[in-house]
């Protein structure tokens, strides 16, 4: 019995596979919320963002995805606290990586928005309600490019609005005078104001209706092609990500449970939770099928989690699951064949999953019906 392959997850990300170099790397991020009882909102999360790619982070409410995003951008406030881990950023010009935790004061402020910017969830709330749009653009420019005169600032703001298909005359409007979709576009325009390399989008379309949602998504795609920034797209709506993301990270109870290219996940999810998510919404043009959903609720993160956090709700749970916490491991063979951590033919895979079903050590003791037909997904289900 050989040990499972060494799984240094950062090695799994670093410069691996198609897609170019890394621009942002988070390693072993943990975030706690202080209080009467400490809540472990994010637990030992590592991921890497490559230049020009869209990394989607999906999960239920309360899984920690927004907290993770804030941790990456160093926006955590009490009672939230970074309990461990580091975030590194690789600038455009090939300079050595910057450790975000080391930035303070003026350096941190300068770094903000120029390299990493954020588009917030409800644009209604992300714009200062009592100040005009022009002034809010001005604030950004004054803070980062003090040498710009008021004319230059205005011009640049107009450019940005035009970029997102808004009439530049809207600069003199107050946020309440704009529709939801327009406000979100303004939010995107502001996020792109300093030509950042990474844009974190935290549920950017959740508060909008589907028609506007489509417009905004198309807008984001177009801008990305035009300007080439990377995107971390956070949402609970997996169907969105299947369209727009290159790679997907599925989060559950503060951990990443699966991380893989979107096409792979859509075709053959490796983690039962991912499978559950995918069967929770209908495919508009696909085959009609039964919707399942996932029974139960996420665990209370104020209490220590023993074993796999998803185990109580999992339809594929077996002996080791409630006791041993599964580690995020590289999946060395897609789950349509017998999945093990060490393939006999030595092919590499860019898929990561945290599930004992795919762990060579435990898989042997799994009940036959779970691994029957060597397929995690029960026979007869199609996606």
């Amino acid at each position, binding site marked *: 019995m050989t040990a499972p392959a060494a799984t240094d997850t950062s090695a799994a990300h670093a410069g691996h596979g198609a897609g170019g170099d890394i621009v942002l790397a988070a390693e072993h991020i943990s975030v706690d919320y*202080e209080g009467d009882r400490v809540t472990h909102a994010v637990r030992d999360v590592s991921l890497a963002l490559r230049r020009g790619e869209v990394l989607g982070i999906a999960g239920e409410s309360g899984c920690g995805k927004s907290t993770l995003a804030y941790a990456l951008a160093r926006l955590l406030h009490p009672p939230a606290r970074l309990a461990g881990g580091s975030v590194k950023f690789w600038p455009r010009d090939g300079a050595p990586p910057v450790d975000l935790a080391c930035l303070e004061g003026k350096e941190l402020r300068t770094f903000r928005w120029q390299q990493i910017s954020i588009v917030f969830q409800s644009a209604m709330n992300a714009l200062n309600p009592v100040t005009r749009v022009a002034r809010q653009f001005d604030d950004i420019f004054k803070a980062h490019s003090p040498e710009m005169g008021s004319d230059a600032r205005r011009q640049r703001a107009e450019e940005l609005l035009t970029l997102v298909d808004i009439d530049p005359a809207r600069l003199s409007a107050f946020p309440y005078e704009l529709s939801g979709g327009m406000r979100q576009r303004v939010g995107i325009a502001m996020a792109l104001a300093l030509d950042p390399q990474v844009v974190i989008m935290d549920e950017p379309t959740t508060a909008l209706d589907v028609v506007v949602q489509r417009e905004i998504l198309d807008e984001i795609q177009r801008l990305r092609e035009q300007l080439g920034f990377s995107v971390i797209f956070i949402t609970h709506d997996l169907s969105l990500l299947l369209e727009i993301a290159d790679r997907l990270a599925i989060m559950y109870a503060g951990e990443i449970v699966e991380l893989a290219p979107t096409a792979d996940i859509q075709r053959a999810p490796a983690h039962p939770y991912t499978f559950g998510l995918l069967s929770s919404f209908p495919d508009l043009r696909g085959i009609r099928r039964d919707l399942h959903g*996932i029974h*139960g*609720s996420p665990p209370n993160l104020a209490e220590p989690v023993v074993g796999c956090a998803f185990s109580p709700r999992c339809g594929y749970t077996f002996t080791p699951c409630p006791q041993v916490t599964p580690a995020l491991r590289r999946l060395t063979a897609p789950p349509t064949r017998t999945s093990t951590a060490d393939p006999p033919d030595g092919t590499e895979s860019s898929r990561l999953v945290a599930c004992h079903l795919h762990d060579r050590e435990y898989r042997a003791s799994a009940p036959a019906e779970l691994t029957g037909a060597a397929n995690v997904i029960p026979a007869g289900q199609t996606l």
Partner: protein
Amino acid sequence: MSTDNILVGTAQEPALTPGATSTPPRRWWRRGSLRLRIGLGIVAFFVLMAVVGPFFVGDPNAFHAAILQGPSARFPLGTTNTGQDVFAQLVYGSRGTLEVGFLAAAVATLISILIGIGGGYLGGRTDDALSLLSNVVLVIPALPLIILVSAYLHSKSLLPLIAVIAFTSWAASARVLRAQTLSVRQRDYVLAARASGEKSWRIVLVEILPNELPIVTAQFLFGVIFAILTAAGLAFLGLGNINSITWGSMLYYAQNDEALTVGAWWWFVPPGLCIAILGAGLALANFGLDEVSNPRLRVVSRRRAR
């Protein structure tokens, strides 16, 4: 505020968990905060003083030979210029002050419930009229009005005093309750009750009022502070109920009998101090209640984390 979801143990989004239901009204008395306990402690202390204190002190009206004496063993807070026991007066005064305070606030809160919740729930023209009434009463200066009424009436008894304070102080509270009712009115359980044909007064009493209990309590506590301050101010001016002993009337006599110029601090400092401490206790209790229902306001003593 998407980060708040972390603090919720159960999923609220129905999209992925069909079993989740919309949450019922939260319990606000779950856990007492330090401020709430201190505040209530202070109030309890004074209530105790008012109820049982008079059995343990001498006669506040009796004259003694020792006039204008500082604190001593016999007279813990000294004597007035007519030889009366200041400490005894203080204790009896707590009774008079608290009576006025709680009674006036109770009546004012009742009026504000009727007008605020009633108007907010009924809506339409009734609401417009009641709301206008509240705003007008709110904006007309209370103390001058109370002074005028007290002066015109020439009355020295308790009831007109309570009535006039109550009738000038209900408006602020009514406005708050109305605002809250307007939002509660849209909630699922209220709409369900209306759809099932429940009578209006029953809905208000059973569905709406219990949910606004925290706010009603907060307004009541503010009302007590206000009533005590107003009554004390009136007594200080020589109006209102100066026949019975209250902290305000003590200050009236202290001012009139030149306690200030002779430096008899033991006479005029304690009554006002008691008002201030009781007021602070009520306000702290209010903040404590606030904290229990809105966790963000709690004091978090951690260094700024990243």
